[in-house]
């Protein structure tokens, strides 16, 4: 009898627990469904959601934004544990290969839109089995954003064509300009923001980066990886770095305080600059990147299989990444489309941005994107970038010399990719 009572109480307690557990859920009344869109940074979709909701009664869109690293770590965890992912998940280029390896977890988006996309953008989210896990949103492209007023104060030519020409021959020339700037730099400013960000831009131009196409890590053997390292170290030793870590609060602050004169500038970086450096409107300008084209970043929208409304999510992801929406996101947010047919449209090719002193950003970025030699990205690209960044920070902080830090970086990457 006592046993029975105990069992009865246990059952009651369990029922209470489960009752509490099933209270949540995002179903609204009257057949409404809510699509959860999990992103990082700023995709600029607010206005588009409103239009989509207006055109599709019964659908609500809820966006959740997290920091870059946190977002991708959360997504990986949710995929691993089989629950918790949103209906649509944004994935950056640095992590798309890692998600591609877990391709079974994503809905196959088919091949209908293949012809629209830049071929390398399409390939990067395609699994070995030929399954497409993500619609491309933007590509980075690459330029250099710079502060005209600071260049003038340092006695350098500030006109954008002259600036572009001064380092057109490559990154060595960029460092030469940097040395001139540093010699007469206005107090409290440095030539560029930080070693890690510069490194990403430089390595992004190499034909091969951290991975060979068969997914073997070539960090230690690819001379380009070391060459880019040495170049950035030279810039750090030349006192050109503001020693700010990309995406840190100090880095954000660095825009507002005007701590650096140039920054490697993918298209999405322009939105960042506009957000952080409002008081310098018109003083920023955009020059072409040393050595021609390049790419840094760019994203995808994926639909995890564990989402509650897979079909609706697929439709929304396709709509958000459709040519019309990508074109609008370029002029409103500066996000460069991954659909090359748009590059020659006048509203994009002729677009000039008043914030950047009316720089012809449409022409600059579409040219860079067309000239781009795509680089193969392997599963841990994002984490390798972070590890190299930390190695360069050790040099910036004076904790280690270049050689010592390089050795540690290589062994850390070996451990990471074991």
């Amino acid at each position, binding site marked *: 009898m006592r046993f029975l009572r105990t069992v009865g109480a246990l059952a009651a307690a369990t029922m209470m627990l489960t009752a509490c557990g099933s209270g949540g859920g995002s179903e609204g009344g009257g057949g409404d469904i809510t699509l959860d869109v999990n992103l990082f940074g700023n995709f600029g979709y607010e206005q588009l959601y409103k239009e989509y909701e207006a055109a599709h009664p019964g659908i609500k869109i809820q966006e959740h934004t997290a920091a870059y690293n946190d977002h991708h770590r959360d997504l990986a965890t949710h995929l691993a544990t089989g629950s918790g992912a949103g209906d649509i998940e944004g994935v950056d280029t640095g992590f798309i290969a890692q998600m591609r390896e877990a391709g079974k977890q994503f809905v196959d988006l088919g091949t209908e839109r293949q012809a629209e996309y830049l071929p390398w953008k399409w390939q990067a989210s395609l699994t070995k089995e030929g399954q497409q896990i993500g619609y491309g949103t933007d590509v980075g492209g690459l330029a250099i954003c710079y502060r005209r007023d600071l260049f003038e104060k340092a006695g350098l030519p500030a006109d954008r064509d002259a600036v572009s020409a001064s380092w057109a021959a490559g990154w060595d020339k960029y460092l030469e300009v940097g040395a001139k700037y540093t010699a007469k730099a206005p107090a409290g400013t440095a030539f560029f923001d930080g070693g890690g960000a510069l490194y990403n831009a430089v390595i992004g131009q190499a034909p091969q980066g951290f991975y060979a196409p068969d997914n073997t890590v070539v960090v230690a053997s690819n001379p380009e990886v070391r060459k880019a390292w040495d170049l950035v170290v030279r810039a750090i030793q030349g006192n050109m770095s503001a020693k700010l870590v990309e995406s840190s609060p*100090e880095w954000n602050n*660095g825009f507002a305080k005007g701590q650096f004169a140039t920054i490697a500038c993918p298209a999405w970086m322009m939105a960042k600059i506009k957000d952080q450096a409002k008081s310098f409107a018109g003083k920023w300008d955009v020059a072409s990147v040393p050595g021609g084209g390049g790419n840094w970043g760019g994203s995808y929208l994926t639909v995890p299989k564990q989402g509650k409304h897979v079909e609706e999510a697929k439709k929304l992801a396709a709509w958000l990444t459709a040519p019309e929406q990508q074109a609008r996101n370029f002029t409103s947010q500066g996000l460069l489309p991954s659909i090359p047919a748009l590059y020659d449209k006048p509203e994009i090719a002729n677009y000039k941005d008043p914030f950047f002193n009316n720089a012809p950003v449409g022409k600059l970025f579409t040219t860079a994107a067309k000239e781009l030699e795509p680089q193969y990205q392997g599963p841990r690209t994002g984490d390798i970038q972070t590890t190299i960044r930390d190695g360069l920070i050790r040099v910036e902080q004076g904790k280690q010399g270049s050689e010592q830090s390089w050795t540690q970086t290589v062994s850390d990457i070996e451990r990471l990719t074991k």
Partner: protein
Amino acid sequence: MRAALSRLDAKGSPYLYIVPFFLLFGVFGLWPLLYTGYVSFNDWDLLDAGEHTWVGLANYRELLGDAYFWNALGNTLSIWVLSTVPQLLAALWIAHLLNHRLRARTSLRMGVLLPNITSIVAVTIVFTQMFGRDFGMINWLLGIVGAGPVDWQANTWSSHLAISLIVAWRWTGYNALIYLASMQAIPHDLYEAADLDGANQRQQFWRITVPQLRPTIMFTAVISTIGGLQIMAEPLLFAGTSTPTGGSDRQFQTAALFMYEQGFREFRFGYASAIAWTLCLVIAVFAVANFLLTRRIANDEK
């Protein structure tokens, strides 16, 4: 029948009343603990949909030879000592002050708990800004007295100091309240007798208050040990980049943060579980040692 039922009620009901705790503890405490133990004997990739193979003690063997683990453990101990010792001494002093004739005593007593109920993220972000390299308040103050700016994140000593301060800020008031509660239970005639014998405030504090607080001091020492060795959020947020390596050279990566890195960046679920269990053992050893030590010290004072 009625009598039998009421006898059953008297005997059985107490068990029923405590069942909810054991049920919750079993589900959220014991089960994860044991499961983590099982996982720690496996090579378990979190990304590979939970694929795993039994590897016995291999994770523990690797851990003992892992320089990054020992580095993290050293950082943890350093931050723990730097935060706990001043924190408990300060708490004792604050409790002593609050126990005496003060204006607005109740609001002050409630006020010391404020840092503890403030979100850990908010506290850490504010402190991290104060410790900023270029525009931080602390470097500004140092500049006024002529000391050079310190890159707080870059050096081992400076980062440990900063993180310890954040931890101490949050927990000093909490410990002070616990001390205060037990100070108020000390019979007042002890102090009156001491007054008659001509003992001054200082002597009264060390000869009466501290020995009487012995069980409480032991309690706070053990609790602070358990909490201090698990510090994770502060160093994670202090880095400012949300990378779990604790600085460019892991100079302020704690053991709990190392566990997080291995589990949720490297996705080595088995290895992270081995770290969890090892950390649990380390904490148990330190908590027992601390218990014995504080008991001795308090005894000597008598």
